[in-house]
């Protein structure tokens, strides 16, 4: 589940690396979406009266509902989405996955208890914890996206890593995910909250890796070490070291090796057989398909196909599905708005005064939440 506490750390130390944007500002941009994460989101969030939406025979359709309408919303805003699906999980993640399985078991037990005692709030809570994206969910979502004319990319391993590779290669503008490890994988631009429901009125957060690194005063390799220290999916972290301590240590020693040499390992115990070197390698050289070999094509939606797939058993309203298909079609016709960036050269210099203030602040080793650039 990403990197523990990274977004908060960035917000505290390098607030200028986060920009709040409206979804409509992304017209014309190609954006990669981590499919399994968004499916998970939909399974949790798209519900009616606390229960997931289902087809006639009780199969969940929340993920399809979410994928269909939220994708349409993106397309209507002029965005060209690409969904990237996970391949096999890396071996290093096995431990993390085991932990998750254990937690599920626990939740299952709790759920049973709650059902027996009839506690509605608890039942709902643990029901949500049991949500899992299955293979079938993925297959159905792929089929739906194909009918919608939205390209799908199969990552050989982690979707995050593949998204990051696509952004780095300039094939797409940004990767949209809630997991911060896209940055650790080297994605230059990360968008959060892009696939959230319109009703929540959440602004899209745009993270720029280069401003993150500049703001934290780190190189990419040091940043990866910082993320491992904060806690990632691929290995354990040192107990007793929180975000503040982690950034201080990295700044002082510049690598995990040096940190291990210098800290009191009795007080701060690293996990046994700590495999941070492999985790680091995984972030640096993840298993991905070469972006050059990936072709993304947006095509016309198949209205009849969509109606056949979604209506009937899956109980989607035919009129709304047809409307959705028309919206997808409409977005494909017509011209797209150009941007001035292409015509004029932009040079951004951080405000010299603010920089001076920050340097002073850093010198005092006091990390306060940043000023300026506050959301309005």
């Amino acid at each position, binding site marked *: 589940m990403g990197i523990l506490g990274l977004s908060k750390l960035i917000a505290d130390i390098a607030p*200028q690396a986060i920009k709040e*944007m*409206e979804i*409509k*500002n992304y*017209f014309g941009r190609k954006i990669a979406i981590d499919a399994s994460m968004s499916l998970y989101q939909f399974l949790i969030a798209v519900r009616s009266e606390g229960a997931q939406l289902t087809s006639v025979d009780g199969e969940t359709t929340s993920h399809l509902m979410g994928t269909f309408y939220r994708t349409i919303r993106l397309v209507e805003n002029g965005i*060209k989405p690409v969904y990237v699906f996970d391949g096999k999980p890396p071996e290093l993640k096995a431990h993390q996955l085991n932990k998750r399985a254990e937690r599920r078991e626990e939740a299952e037990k709790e759920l049973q208890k709650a059902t027996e005692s009839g506690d509605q709030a608890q039942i709902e809570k643990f029901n949500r914890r049991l949500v899992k994206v299955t293979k079938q969910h993925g297959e159905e979502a792929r089929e739906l996206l194909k009918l919608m004319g939205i390209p799908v990319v199969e990552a050989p391993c982690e979707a995050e890593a593949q998204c990051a590779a696509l952004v780095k290669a300039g094939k797409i503008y940004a990767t949209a995910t809630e997991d911060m490890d896209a940055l650790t994988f080297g994605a230059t631009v990360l968008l959060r909250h892009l696939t959230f429901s319109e009703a929540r009125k959440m602004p899209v957060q745009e993270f720029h890796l280069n401003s993150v690194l500049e703001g934290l005063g780190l190189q990419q390799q040091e940043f990866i070490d910082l993320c491992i220290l904060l806690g990632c999916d691929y290995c354990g972290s040192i107990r007793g070291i929180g975000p503040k301590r982690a950034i201080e240590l990295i700044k002082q020693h510049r690598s995990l090796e040096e940190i291990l040499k210098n800290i009191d390992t009795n007080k701060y115990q690293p996990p046994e057989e700590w495999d941070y070197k492999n985790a680091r390698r995984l972030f640096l050289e993840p298993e991905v398909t070469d972006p050059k070999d990936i072709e993304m*094509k*947006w095509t016309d939606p198949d209205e009849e196909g969509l109606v056949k797939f979604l209506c009937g058993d899956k109980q989607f309203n035919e009129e709304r599905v047809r409307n959705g298909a028309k919206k997808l079609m409409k977005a*494909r016709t*017509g*011209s*797209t*708005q*150009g*941007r*001035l*960036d*292409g*015509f*004029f*050269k*932009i*040079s*951004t*210099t*951080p*405000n010299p*005064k*603010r920089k001076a*203030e920050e340097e002073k602040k850093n010198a005092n080793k006091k990390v306060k939440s940043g*000023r*300026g*650039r506050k959301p*309005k």
Partner: protein
Amino acid sequence: MFEARLLRSSILKKVLEAIKDLLTQATFDCDDSGIQLQAMDNSHVSLVSLTLRADGFDKYRCDRNISMGMNLASMSKILKCAGDKDTVTMKAQDNADTVTFVFESPNQEKVSDYEMKLMNLDLEHLGIPETEYSCTIRLPSAEFARICRDLSQFGESMVISCTKEGVKFSASGDIGSANIKLAQTASVDKEEEAVVIEMDEPVTLTFACQYLNYFTKATSLSPQVQLSMSADVPLVVEYRIQDIGHIRYYLAPKIEEEDS
């Protein structure tokens, strides 16, 4: 120390009206030649470039170059507190984090001052290349505002095409289509009512109505507006502000999809 004084606050009020819908915040760059503002809207489709020359102010002093980041909604609120005939003075200390607006009524009986916090904005600067435009069209600003308003009822985008015969604005959408043609005026009594077209090559470009409607908020600043166009480059919409400077808007054209 920075101090700039205008006898008529109405100019500054109108300038703010002309930019505040497009930009939420902007940096006012002041040096001894005057005040400059250059900023893009959030989606980087349009750019506002404002110049107010030092000699256009009734009093102007700028000892050290300063850049003041302002929240335009707040600034607009403050300027709404000024009467149209009031004198307005903007003041700031070197390296200050606030700016002060002083409004004085014509008979000096009422003096009010408003202090506003400045923002620490990144300085974004766009290098705009010198461009020779294929077409320039001058027309009454109120006429242009009317055309933009009328056509935006028909569609999201407007085609402007300039030929020897004149300039044509058109839009189409669900309810139908609309075309407005303007020919060069043969003879006019008043210069500000003239339509003047200079054309080397015909140009046809498509623009989003929404942005043009934001630009025409500057209509009250000038009786005439000038549109400059060349194929595949941004449109320039310029309003001259009498005796003191100008406001220019740049708008990226809409482009046909290559393949998708």
